[in-house]
């Protein structure tokens, strides 16, 4: 082959692929501003800025290591902020500390809650971010990719004047959604953080810049009980595919309504997973992604509507295959079997949920033909396979 042949052939890839990439680019950017405002955790950023201030003179290895397990039956956030003695990291000057509070989740996602406590007198800069290496965020025994997000739930001031930020990191299966064969709970896993950065020229022309290069590694066991509930349907629902705005330049056209046979819906306080099938000829993943993903939510019994969101890292809401006993996505019946997982911004009480909303279609939970409790893995300690280098500074860094 000549290189020119390859370049010419690559240039001539399909119009659909070229356009999809363009649309994805603008779509992601469209989300960024909103999500950044909502999700970028000021508390974590402030913590890190403080760490920066402490270490500005001579950057040091800030590695730390958390070894903790949890066995709580968490149903709501209030149940989770009750572990005040779990101090995961405290720097030597006592200006900042991280208090691990708990973990909860379902088969697809886990949320790790912690408080960031900043001592009085620390100047709090505005826009910082924690550079989590999401591509390396994985289960030690499995190369399955995970998406992630981070956020702050509440800011309070302690009696001594310390700023306390209730924060979380969410980790989510991103390469596949296969709750029947894999469950996030009770798994050992680790996160690697690659440093601290900041934004400038925000929001008009935001640019990232490196604030502090360092390395943080955290390993822990996701020893929680899957608290999701599965609603079995096996019913057809007609779902419209409205136009979606990628930005002021790119507006899609509306698609034809499609009929989804919804087999099962798994609902937890942090997200929803839909399992459905549709005729092969109706499959347009990109449009489905937008129709289902961008216009969905839950309706509570008091009438309020809580929107679901895509993962800010994108992969969570990708339409993934769940062929079950079939090979790949295509079932023996010629239909396409798919699943999609969406998350809530905050933890909700699923007892308050009356129905689910996809586009303009309402799915009443009462219409389910049966209800199944989540898969409950056996709890217990799992040996954590800590990667090389992780935890080396644990003994010296942690003062409690």
């Amino acid at each position, binding site marked *: *082959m*000549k*290189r020119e*042949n*390859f*370049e*010419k*052939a*690559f*240039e*001539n*890839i*399909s*119009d*659909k*692929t*070229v*356009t*999809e*990439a*363009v649309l*994805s*680019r*603008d779509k*992601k*950017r469209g989300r*960024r501003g909103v*999500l950044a405002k909502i999700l970028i955790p000021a508390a974590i950023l402030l913590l890190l800025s403080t760490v920066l201030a402490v270490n500005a003179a001579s950057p040091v290895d800030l590695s730390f290591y958390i070894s903790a397990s949890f066995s709580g039956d968490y149903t709501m956030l209030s149940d989770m902020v009750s572990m005040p003695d779990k101090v995961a990291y405290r720097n030597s000057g006592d200006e900042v500390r991280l208090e691990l509070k708990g973990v909860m989740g379902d088969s697809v996602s886990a949320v790790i809650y912690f408080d960031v406590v900043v001592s009085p007198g620390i100047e709090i800069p505005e826009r910082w971010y924690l*550079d*989590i*290496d*999401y*591509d*390396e965020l994985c289960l030690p025994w499995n190369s399955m990719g995970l998406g992630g997000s981070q956020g702050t739930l509440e800011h309070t001031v302690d009696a001594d004047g310390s700023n306390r930020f209730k924060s979380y990191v969410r980790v989510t299966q*991103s*390469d596949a959604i296969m709750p029947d064969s894999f469950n996030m709970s009770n798994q050992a896993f680790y996160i690697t953080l*690659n440093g601290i950065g900041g934004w400038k020229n925000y929001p008009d022309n*935001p640019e*990232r810049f490196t604030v502090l290069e360092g390395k943080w590694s955290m390993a822990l066991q996701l020893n929680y009980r899957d608290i999701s509930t599965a609603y079995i349907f096996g019913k057809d629902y007609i779902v419209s595919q409205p136009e979606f705005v990628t930005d002021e*330049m*790119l507006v899609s*056209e509306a698609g034809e309504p499609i009929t989804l046979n919804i087999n099962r819906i798994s609902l937890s306080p942090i997200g929803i997973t839909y399992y459905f099938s549709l005729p092969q000829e109706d499959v347009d*993943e*990109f449009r489905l*992604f937008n129709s289902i993903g961008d216009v969905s939510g839950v309706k509570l019994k008091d009438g309020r509507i809580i929107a679901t969101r895509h993962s*800010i*890292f*994108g*992969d969570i809401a*990708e*339409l*993934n295959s769940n062929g079950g006993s079939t090979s790949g996505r295509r079932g023996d019946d010629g239909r396409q079997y798919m699943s999609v997982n969406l998350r809530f911004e905050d933890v909700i009480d699923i007892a308050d949920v009356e129905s689910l909303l996809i586009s303009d279609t309402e799915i009443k939970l009462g219409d389910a033909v049966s209800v199944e409790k989540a898969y409950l893995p056996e709890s217990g300690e799992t040996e954590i396979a800590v990667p090389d280098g992780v935890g080396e500074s644990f003994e010296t860094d942690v003062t409690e």
Partner: protein
Amino acid sequence: MDDNEIISLFNSRSEEALHEITHKYGRLLSKLARDITGSDEDAAECVNDTLLALWKCIPPEAPDPLLAYIMRILRNLSIKRFRSNSAQKRNAGEVLCIDELCEVLTFDGDETDENLLSAVIDRFLASLKSADRNLFVRRYWHNESVRDIAFGMKMSESAVKVRLYRLRGKMKTHLNKEGFNV
């Protein structure tokens, strides 16, 4: 205004068609051209040349989808501009992203059916998850920087690099399986 209406404007030889394209896609086209040429000035010229090309080609062409058609023209013109600048040593040693992709392939100099190869590449891309496909195309077709991709997809730059590395390897394997000795 939808693309069909813009085509109609071209067909009636109304310059409004060019205004509509600039209004609808202008920022996007400037970004693509700038990603390839690395220069605002060159990018602006490439966009203008693209508009001129559209004016000449439509009609008789009636491209559908219009956006992909425009981007192909713009990409070609921008790459030509980049190559020209390289020949004049005005690019300070910069390379196109496609060069990064070509580095993992072995070229023996034999002629290859480009249409067949293009179909094989399309099948490879179709086999990827959409996130990976978009990542790959944004890097190697749209010539987007790792930094911008990381920013847009909320990934770290190292994560983007690692994923691209894996995808390049996958593509090489796919081409070899399909009978192309690369």
